[in-house]
């Protein structure tokens, strides 16, 4: 078969193994970690150097070929779902750690460096990179920048936007761009903040400068059981109101603990309606003081049992259950769909009860693990992708949870991004004028609209269509059921 114009143009300057055009070579790139959205890319390109990457952009820009950037493919919202006629630009081979300066406490990285490798490399200096998404073994720093990734420790240590000092990269037109840097608060608009979390719609990042922080010498975990989700939710608010900012504050409901316990053997209290995991880190004296305070607050908030990790092994075992919540979902069900809404903490109990009612309505199970300290929910809906009706119900179930989050003053995505998955929910959260403002930002950076097109910002037509669909679903199949 004759190669496309773009393949021919790219092969002129790229080595043989940097351009994948055969179907079996392109197949592995057809989706990210949200596997329900699949699209075979027109071409896969894996540059080895920054200048090759720039050439790719210049060429695609000239030939008007869409470009979708991809890091490690661990995204959960279809943000790097390929374009059928486009180039899938993998940054995986740009994976060098360019510099670690332990005195200034910064690292300069290529975008393909896996998140965890930064901390491993900084270990010798007693430093680490704080944001720790659960996929940190695999996910890349470039992807983290695109998604403004979080993790379990953001309450105390912030998101990607708080830990990245600067980026270098290129516009779709191939122009070099440097935003932020080692010197704080430069002149002009804060385009760095705008770019972080822009899901690959504004620029392609080729270098990221991150902040490294000292490793806390000590950490301890408090595990508390609650007889109902409401008091667990109140306990979360009580910890924060008590002036405590724990290193992590996580919640799992009974369905989640029951799912992980059989194989993680974490030692969770399976009689509790919900458990909280509250971590304290710092010097041993600091941790001892804070753990005492946390215990006090949780006890007055109605914790039925309280345990404090007595060793590092125990702390890690308790965490292992939480960190294996998603794989556990995979054991219970052929497929699972993880949501990512965020709400003001005070509504936690209310939302969990509403989700329980939705389970009955959609005839699907949902377990809840979440970053309670940030109000970031991860309801995990269990479904079977081979059964199309089951997937449709899961999708509607998820959308309804997100609508509830918006109603309560929250957001449809706390850390996973919009991608293609939450385009409809964007219609719920933002007005046409607000979506037009997003489109304006996109146009300013990428006037031709070639960079990751069709993501994040829904078209007017799509929102109109979705509006009709919601009425349809509300009015016909479930008219007799209470909404919340």
């Amino acid at each position: 078969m004759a190669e496309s114009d773009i393949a021919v143009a790219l092969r002129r300057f790229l080595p043989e193994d940097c351009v994948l055009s055969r179907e079996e070579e392109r197949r592995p790139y057809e989706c990210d970690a949200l596997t329900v959205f699949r699209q075979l890319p027109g071409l896969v390109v894996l540059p080895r150097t920054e200048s090759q990457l720039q050439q790719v952009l210049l060429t695609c820009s000239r030939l008007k070929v869409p470009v979708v950037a991809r890091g490690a493919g661990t995204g959960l919202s279809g943000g790097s779902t390929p374009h059928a006629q486009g180039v899938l630009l993998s940054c995986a081979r740009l994976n060098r750690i360019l510099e670690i300066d332990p005195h200034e406490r910064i690292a300069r990285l290529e975008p393909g460096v896996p998140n965890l490798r930064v901390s491993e490399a900084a270990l010798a200096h007693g430093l680490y990179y704080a944001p720790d998404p659960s996929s940190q073994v695999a996910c890349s720093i470039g992807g983290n920048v695109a998604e403004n990734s979080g993790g379990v420790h953001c309450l105390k240590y912030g998101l990607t936007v708080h830990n990245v000092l600067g980026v270098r990269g290129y516009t779709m037109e191939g122009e070099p761009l440097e935003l932020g840097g080692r010197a704080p608060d430069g002149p002009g608009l804060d385009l760095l903040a705008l770019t972080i979390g822009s899901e690959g719609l504004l620029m392609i990042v080729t270098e990221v400068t991150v902040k490294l922080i000292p490793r806390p010498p000590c950490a301890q975990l408090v595990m508390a059981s609650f007889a109902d989700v409401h008091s667990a939710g109140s306990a979360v608010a009580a910890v924060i109101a008590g002036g405590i900012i724990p290193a992590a504050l996580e919640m799992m409901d009974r369905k989640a603990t029951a799912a992980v316990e059989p194989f993680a053997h974490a030692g969770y209290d399976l009689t509790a309606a919900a458990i909280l995991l509250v971590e304290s880190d710092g010097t041993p004296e600091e941790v001892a003081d804070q753990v005492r305070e946390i215990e006090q607050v949780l006890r007055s908030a109605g914790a039925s049992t309280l345990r404090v990790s007595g060793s590092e092994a125990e702390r890690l075992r308790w965490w292992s259950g939480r960190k294996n919540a998603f794989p556990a979902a995979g054991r219970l069900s052929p497929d699972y769909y993880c949501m990512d809404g965020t709400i003001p903490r005070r509504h936690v109990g209310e939302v969990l009860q509403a989700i329980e009612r939705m389970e009955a309505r959609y005839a699907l199970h949902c377990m809840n693990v979440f970053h309670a300290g940030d109000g970031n929910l991860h309801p995990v809906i269990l479904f079977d992708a081979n059964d199309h009706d089951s997937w449709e119900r899961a999708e509607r179930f998820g959308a309804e949870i997100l609508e509830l989050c918006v109603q309560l003053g929250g957001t449809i995505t706390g850390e996973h991004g919009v991608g293609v998955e939450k385009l409809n929910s964007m219609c719920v959260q933002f007005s046409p004028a607000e979506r037009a403002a997003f489109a304006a930002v996109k146009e300013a950076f990428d006037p031709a609209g070639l960079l990751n097109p069709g993501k994040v910002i829904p078209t007017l037509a799509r929102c109109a269509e979705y509006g009709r669909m919601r009425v349809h679903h509300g009015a016909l199949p479930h008219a007799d059921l209470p909404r919340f």
Partner: protein
Amino acid sequence: MAATADAHLAELRERVSAAHRTHQALRLKGSGTKDFYGESLAGEVLELRAHQGIVDYEPSELVITARCGTPLSQIEAALAAHGQFLAFEPPAFGADPSIGGVIAAGLSGPRRVYAGAARDFVLGTRLLTGDGELLRFGGQVMKNVAGFDVSRLLCGSLGILGVITEISLKVLPRPRAEQTLRLELPAAAAVESFNRWSALGLPISGGAWWQGSAWVRLSGAAPAVRSARERIGGEAIDAASAQARWDALRHCQLPLFDRRVIWRLSVPGAAAPLSLPGELLIDWGGALRWYADPAEGADVRAVASAAGGTALCWRGAAPAGRFHPLPPVLARLHRRLKERFDPHGIFNPGRLLAGL
């Protein structure tokens, strides 16, 4: 209060829409305490002070939402009543600034490199655009990646993209313990020490140097502050004097700020001493360097660039603009954003960038 606020907002929308129709430039004004800041002031004054009041504050959510004209002092008092504060320590120049001005300017105090900058605490905004639309970006939650982070873009925008009418900010509990230490150290050794102590994980929340003395502020849990104090040594300053000292630094009230010409250089935190003759004050553990009355003809911008940073002419005649010039590709992005948010160029023309 809410009814009055709605009336104010309706009035603002009307004023802005009218200006948009007639292409009338507007000069957005909160308290006017930062009129000195920026390139140039132009347009008919649009008073924003009247649109004030705390809309929502729930201490357990760590979020406060206030209208743009709310005085900073009112916000700080409300937070203090619950043992919380704005950790970026926004500076106030003279009279009480409005929170809208604080965020539009995006300036941060001594805690900047330790706790975060103003933009790090911005969670959500409402923006009145040229065509009178009232948009909402971000929200009142800690984590939110729905759409572009326009709220943080507005922080430091000096009002050129529209009127920020409401702001939600993340707040933090005040540190349990605080202790300031003073050490006799040359400037270079002070910067080296600030960086070394930070790398050791000591709970530093301020690192400044002026006239031969390094000032270190420790904040956090009592045991951590105690052990850091023993480790660092120096003279322990009593709480009242320390507070006065950090306030003076935060609000630019030290004698150095009375001088005729003042430059504010932002550089990498561990940058070696700059070869700039003039009186020096260091803040942000080394990342912020103020120079008063540098020698005639000193090319401050070139020195800042060579150190990997930028220079802002804070006071005195500014050669070719107050702010460090932007590279052409960035200036072009600024122009395109401005054109799209404010097609008739009515908001604070020329304040952030000449001709914009």
